[in-house]
Each structure stands twice: as C-alpha cells, then as structure tokens.
C-alpha cells in the first residue's frame, strides 16, 4: 500500500507553514507525525495534492508550566507527553493516556496536535482533553484564536479548524484533584482503536468512540452533581450518545461497555482522590 501521488513541502517554522498553506490552498494538508494521515492516504480515504510537513518545526514541541495550566506544543509526540515529569505530577491523566496510544513505535512519531486535529472519535487523546477542559490555540493568516475543547469537535473528522489554520498549542488546566483520574479503554488487541474508552477527571467524564465526536457523558455528570452514587450515575453513560455498529461491536454492546467502563473509571478516580 503506497499513498497516491502528492507534492511534498517542508516547513521549518509556523509562519512558513501558514504561508505555504495560503499559497497551496485547500488541496494541501498539514503532515505532523503522519500516523493518522498516511494510513488514510494509503487507503485512498484522503488524497491531498500537497503535503506540508511540519515535522521540523521544533518551536512547536514543548511542555511548559504556565501556572494554572500546562501548555503542550502541538507537535509534541505522544512519547514525550507520556514521559513528561511535569505532566506526570500536574496532569497525570494526560501523561498516562498518551502512553496508551497505539504502541511504542507509533508514540515515537504521532503528535498530540495531529491526533486532535485529525479528530477521530475513536482516538484516545481528544476525549481525554475534553475531560480535562483543554483549550486549543489556533494560528491562521489573520492571527491567533483559542477554542475550548467543548467547541472544537464538530462532527466526523471535523473540527473548528478553518482551511489554512494550524493548531499550535494545547492548554491543559491543572486539575484541582490531581490524582482523581482514570482512563479505561476496551480493545481486542493492545494497538487497536478503543471499541469504547472512558476518561475521567474528578466528576468530568468523556467517552471515546460513542458517537461522531468525542463526547462528554453529560447525563452521568448531571447525575453525579445531583448526588447519585457512582453505580447509579454510570447507568446513564450511553444517554445522549450515538454509538455506531461495526464489525467490532454493536451499538448496544458499546452502550453496555460505556456503562461498565464509566463505573470502573469513576470508582478508580474516587479511590485515588
């Protein structure tokens, strides 16, 4: 499997990447680690005319303490997020979940920004960042703007990013109850996408692969806020979701998994708090 033909461009700075995107137009795609885009191109689900390789933009690979939040450069690799001491102490949910993405080889290439911009509802990190109330920093020709994680994921592989815009930073608020987290992922093989996944930070609950986008389990959160037990709240896990059926699982089984995994995740988060 070989990708369809394209013309390769390499950007060495954010400005150069934005200029190239403006010049090449909508037939261009940004390439970060390439571990979402290249597989799609091999399958002909994507055939961009131009790739703009961001891999040498070292200015976007960092993890910084900004006081109330941790700033993660969009080109920071999963491996570096996973092994960050700062994240391990301030946002352990994110550090742990990054170590659950794919396998070691994939984590040596894949980036947090690439995963977010690709916006696969079956990916781990978009849901994790939703549970953490992250904010995304976006640069475009007209300047910089920020979008909350709640507003960012719009539909199937669709985000708030406009053509020519580049996700540059993920701002992750430091949770007050740092250790009250859990990440649960149900897969057939270690490297597979989650059939269903759950990220919990305190009483915030997000779901992997339960609809067109990563979702907050709002009914669970509302039940918890109203004083429900974990077991009772978890029963609401599939409410308001739109899980699909495929060769791996029916929608009904996904609903069951969501209820079980939400209960386990809330129990684990509370036991660690």
């Amino acid at each position: 499997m070989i990708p369809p033909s394209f013309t390769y461009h390499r950007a060495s700075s954010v400005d150069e990447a934005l200029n190239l995107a403006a010049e090449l137009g909508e037939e261009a795609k940004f390439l970060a680690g390439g571990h979402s885009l290249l597989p799609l191109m091999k399958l002909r689900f994507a055939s961009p005319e131009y790739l703009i390789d961001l891999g040498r933009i070292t200015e976007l690979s960092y993890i910084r303490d900004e006081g109330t939040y941790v700033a993660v450069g969009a080109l920071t690799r999963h491996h570096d997020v996973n092994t960050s001491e700062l994240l391990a102490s301030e946002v352990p949910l994110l550090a742990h979940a990054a170590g659950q993405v794919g396998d070691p080889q994939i984590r040596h290439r894949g980036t947090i920004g690439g995963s977010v911009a690709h916006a696969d509802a079956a990916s781990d990190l978009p849901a994790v960042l939703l549970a953490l109330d992250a904010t995304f920093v976006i640069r475009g020709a007209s300047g910089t703007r920020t979008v909350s994680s709640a507003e960012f994921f719009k539909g199937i592989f669709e985000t708030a990013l406009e053509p020519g815009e580049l996700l540059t930073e993920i701002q992750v608020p430091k949770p007050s109850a740092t250790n009250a987290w859990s990440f649960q992922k149900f897969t057939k093989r270690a490297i597979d996408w989650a059939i269903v996944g759950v990220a919990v930070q305190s009483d915030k609950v997000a779901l992997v692969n339960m609809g067109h986008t990563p979702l907050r389990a709002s009914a669970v959160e509302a039940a918890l806020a109203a004083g429900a037990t974990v077991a009772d709240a978890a029963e609401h896990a599939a409410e308001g979701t739109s899980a699909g059926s495929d060769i791996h699982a029916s929608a009904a089984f996904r609903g069951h998994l969501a209820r079980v995994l939400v209960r386990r995740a809330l129990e684990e988060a509370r036991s660690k708090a």
Partner: protein
Amino acid sequence: MDRYPGSEEGERQVSKVSLAVNGKEITADVEDRTLLVHFLRDVANLTATNVGCETTSCGACTVLLDGESVKSCTVLAAQADGREVTTLEGLASDSGEMSAVQKAFHEQHGLQCGFCTPGFVMAITSLLKENPSPTEAEVRSGLEGNICRCTGYHNIVQAALAAASASTGSANAGEAAK
C-alpha cells in the same frame, strides 16, 4: 523504482532524499510518496527490514530513526531526510560481532520462521535504550507494536530480558530471564 509505477493518480513528484543509513550517507531522487521502508529495501538495498502488513500494525518494518523505533511503512523517506536510520544490518560491529539483542535472540532461540525477527530486534534495541532493565511486563507492553504470527512470543520476551541482563547485569531482568 518500479514499485511506484505509472502516473494514473497524477504527476510523479520527485525530490532528493539523503539519509544516513547505518552510518553511510545514501542520496537518491525518489518520488515524494516513497515510504522509508521502500527507500531502505529498493534504494539502499538493505532487505533485512521486512514489509509485513503495511498498515502500521505488525512492526515487521521497524527501524530506528535517530535512535528510536518507528514503523518504516508509515514514515515517508522525505520525512527522514537528513536524519539517521539504523536497520538490522547496522547493529553488528564492523568486525561482525552481533549486538547484545542479536546474541540473545540466537541464544534464547527467539525466532521461528524469522519474518518478524528484524522488527522485534529493532523494537527491543529501542526499548532497552529507553529502559535498560525492564520487567517482563514492561517488555511485553513494550512489544505491543510487533506481531509474531508463529506466536513465538515466549522466547522473544526471554531474549529481550537476557539482552537486558547481559548489558546491565540487572537483577531485575536477570531474575525474570531464568
């Protein structure tokens, strides 16, 4: 490379790519869409790196890029331009002495048909660089990206632990390898 025939999907775009493969500079004009694994096999003529699933799943094509394991079927040659690539052929010393991981595969019989072996050896080489004395559980999770369809995992894991033990004398790895 006739692996990339025709232009039915548009014009062929060609660029110069230069890699330091096992310490030797290799430069070639290749199509922009050329995958690193094909550059290694067809341009550099280094065929230890196997093409397995081609879908980033099986790990047979694992090589080191700047010292870290990657699946070379999912890296463009252009993305590796100017960087260092190590393949299985680059592990032995100039005098032909095998690396600790290679020796351990030999001594622990860490292979059956051998197709997945180069990928496993490279993945373990990278794993031990990051974690020189892993537990058995850490070896197993560190090898999640490699598949052995002979299902010969037991001896592969023993080989990884033996290599760690030989390199570090670590009690951790040594104990587990017994």
